[in-house]
């Protein structure tokens, strides 16, 4: 099988009856079939077919359960007609139902600057700014240092102008593409030494994008890096540009589209969270149960042994940025664990593994157990497994789990995993750094819970303290992350961008709460978010969500106590809670009832519940509450 990145080698090849399956797509059950079809490698032909099928089903009014709708407007000075269906197809792979709105060709500035342009009329959720260097004012000025500096500044100003126009006219999140370098070495080797050459101008502009625009909440699709990864000589194709202003060689359309879809997916919390590792011939060479620990192929200086070390290094790198690791292997547990403890070259140790399932049960079942133990959904898991039969079995039994194809040569395992983009992120927060400690602590708590006879004394034994305060700028990224990826304990599943959250912080009719939890095993970080809107003497809970890591610890009771107290001090009479059911939030179906709210109204599936502030009796809670004072708005302004 091919390992060429352009063919997304981690995806299985599409079935021969792909067109037929798209054609016969039944609106009932369409969402899962679409996701299954999108899990294959889809070239331009397949992308077009599946995008048409999606449009047909969506026009028929069918609800696509589990897919998040995103309207994506593309602003570009090159042709995007061919990329559009590929982005739609790739979006399905990340649980997104993307509707692409293409701006008129080469009308970037008109579209961005006129408030009633097609762009803004379409009310996009996201705007992709896909600028080609050929449409930007960056003409080379070799050797003219000062002019070069001005050109780069002007290029940035132009992009910043576009972005501020977009932000002024709509609420969309902006994704900016970095600009690939070019094959244009007029001075040869001396090009990179000379200020003002085209490649120097482009790379300086890209650096400014990252330095200046990311802090402003712009997302970057790093197409420059993608082009460099596959080779700029391959990426750039004058034929495509000359023929139809297609900005790169058409065979990279699927790769490009997947890259864009990943960024959107990450912004909507679709990135996966846990890497599940098979053991034999995946993270070491050989079968530990048959060959013994001392015969495993895993060593520096050994050509195949280094390949497996590289897999472990990749897993560790993911671990240190907050991806949870688990083991799922057909093995005797004691022998498998012994390899982790005793093999001198092992980089992965038991302490890195949050859930360790080594037994003889089938993998699908073990993967379910892992998901349950970690409090994660199956769609958060990625299984790395060298065995094609096991991969196939898991894909059929648990289509939610991502299972990358792997080439025969273990030297390509690590790269294949990392290039597949399962763990795409748009930020790196303090909580990401600590996440693995938290999961490890969860496992300890689970053990303690087994020892405790009654739940109350168990909870008391945790020595929990929560800190509740308003949203702060420093926590904003984490708040946005929680808002966009919490699915289970989430009453309304309303998603807000960083820009939205910032506005909420300053809105006098809105009160925000963020909750941190500490216990004797460590700091759980920011785990719950609540947004209230004032309406007369009511406080309406616009958003209430909590991380699943801290379920069943009565945090929600403690939070409600604080919210009611705060409402009372502001002279409000009622708290109104809204429950909007989704495929994922059944967990909180009865929350308001449990919290002694009374049912107010039911419209369709949406329910509203009310709680009388004056008669509310605070819940007794097994934790300490520290209230941070609400911000002094007058002082803040």
């Amino acid at each position, binding site marked *: 099988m091919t390992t060429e990145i352009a063919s997304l080698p981690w995806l299985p090849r599409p079935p021969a009856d792909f067109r037929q399956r798209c054609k016969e797509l039944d609106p009932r059950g369409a969402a899962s079939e679409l996701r299954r079809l999108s899990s294959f490698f889809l070239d331009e032909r397949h992308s077009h077919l599946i995008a048409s099928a999606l449009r047909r089903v969506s026009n028929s009014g069918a609800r696509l359960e589990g897919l998040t709708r995103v309207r994506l407007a593309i602003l570009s000075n090159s042709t995007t007609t061919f990329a559009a269906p590929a982005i739609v197809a790739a979006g399905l792979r990340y649980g997104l139902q993307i509707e692409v709105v293409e701006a008129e060709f080469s009308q970037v500035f008109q579209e961005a600057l006129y408030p009633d342009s097609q762009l803004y009329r379409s009310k996009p959720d996201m705007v992709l700014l896909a600028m080609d260097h050929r449409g930007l004012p960056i003409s080379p000025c070799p050797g003219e240092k000062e002019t070069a500096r001005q050109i780069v500044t002007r290029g940035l100003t132009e992009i910043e102008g576009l972005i501020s126009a977009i932000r002024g006219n709509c609420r969309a999140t902006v994704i900016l593409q970095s600009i690939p370098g070019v094959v244009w070495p007029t001075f040869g080797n001396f090009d990179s030494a000379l200020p003002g050459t085209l490649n120097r101008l482009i790379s300086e502009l890209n650096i400014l994008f990252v330095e200046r625009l990311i802090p402003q909440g712009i997302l970057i699709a790093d197409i420059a890096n993608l082009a460099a990864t596959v080779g700029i000589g391959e990426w750039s194709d004058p034929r495509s540009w000359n023929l139809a202003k297609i900005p790169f060689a058409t*065979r990279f359309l699927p790769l490009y589209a997947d890259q864009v879809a990943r960024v959107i997916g990450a912004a909507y919390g679709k990135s996966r969270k846990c890497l599940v590792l098979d053991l034999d011939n995946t993270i070491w060479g050989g079968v530990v149960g048959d060959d013994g620990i001392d015969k495993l192929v895993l060593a520096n200086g050994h050509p195949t042994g280094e390949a497996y070390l590289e897999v472990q290094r990749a897993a560790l790198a993911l671990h240190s940025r907050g991806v949870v690791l688990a083991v799922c292997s057909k093995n005797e547990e004691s022998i498998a664990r012994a390899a982790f403890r005793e093999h001198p070259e092992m980089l992965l140790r038991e302490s890195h593994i949050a859930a360790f399932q080594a037994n003889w049960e089938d993998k699908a079942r073990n993967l379910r157990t892992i998901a349950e133990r970690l409090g994660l959904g199956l769609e958060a898991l990625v299984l790395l497994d060298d065995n094609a039969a096991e991969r196939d079995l898991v894909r059929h039994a648990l289509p939610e789990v991502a299972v990358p194809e792997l080439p025969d040569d273990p030297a390509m395992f690590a790269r294949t995993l990392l290039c597949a983009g399962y763990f795409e992120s748009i930020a790196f927060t303090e909580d990401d750094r600590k996440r693995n400690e938290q999961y490890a602590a969860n496992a300890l708590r689970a053990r303690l819970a087994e020892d405790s006879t009654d739940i109350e004394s168990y909870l008391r034994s945790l020595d929990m303290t929560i800190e509740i305060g308003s949203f702060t700028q420093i926590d904003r990224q984490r708040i946005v992350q929680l808002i966009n990826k919490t699915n289970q304990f989430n009453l309304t599943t309303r998603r807000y961008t960083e820009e939205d959250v910032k506005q909420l912080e300053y809105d006098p009719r809105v009160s925000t709460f963020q909750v941190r939890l500490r216990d004797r095993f460590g700091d759980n970080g920011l785990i719950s978010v609540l947004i209230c809107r004032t309406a007369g003497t009511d406080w309406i809970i616009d958003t209430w969500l909590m991380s699943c890591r801290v379920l069943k610890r009565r945090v929600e009771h403690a939070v409600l106590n604080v919210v009611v107290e705060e409402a009372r001090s502001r002279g409000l009479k009622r708290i109104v809670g809204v429950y909007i059911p989704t495929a994922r939030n059944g967990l909180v179906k009865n929350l308001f009832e449990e919290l002694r709210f009374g049912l107010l109204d039911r419209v369709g599936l949406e329910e509203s519940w009310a709680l009388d502030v004056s008669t509310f009796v605070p819940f007794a809670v097994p934790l300490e509450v520290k209230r941070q004072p609400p911000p002094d708005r007058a002082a803040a302004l």
Partner: protein
Amino acid sequence: MNEDIYGKLTEILRDVFDDDSIVATPQLTANDVEAWDSVSNVRVFVAIEVEFGIRFSNAEITQLQNVGELVELIERRRVQ
């Protein structure tokens, strides 16, 4: 060999135009397929390049008169 190319082209055209009735024959031209415009023409050639692992120049693409000539071009390119 030749039939094999026609078979693959038939599949490509059916995918691109989402139409199972299309059959690639030597006489077939873009005018015979209603949806065959300049945009879908690019898509046809993107698919052909991927399927056969070959590349055409823009001049070659614009000079073609019918599917028969296209098949000849593919054959020549594959031999090279």
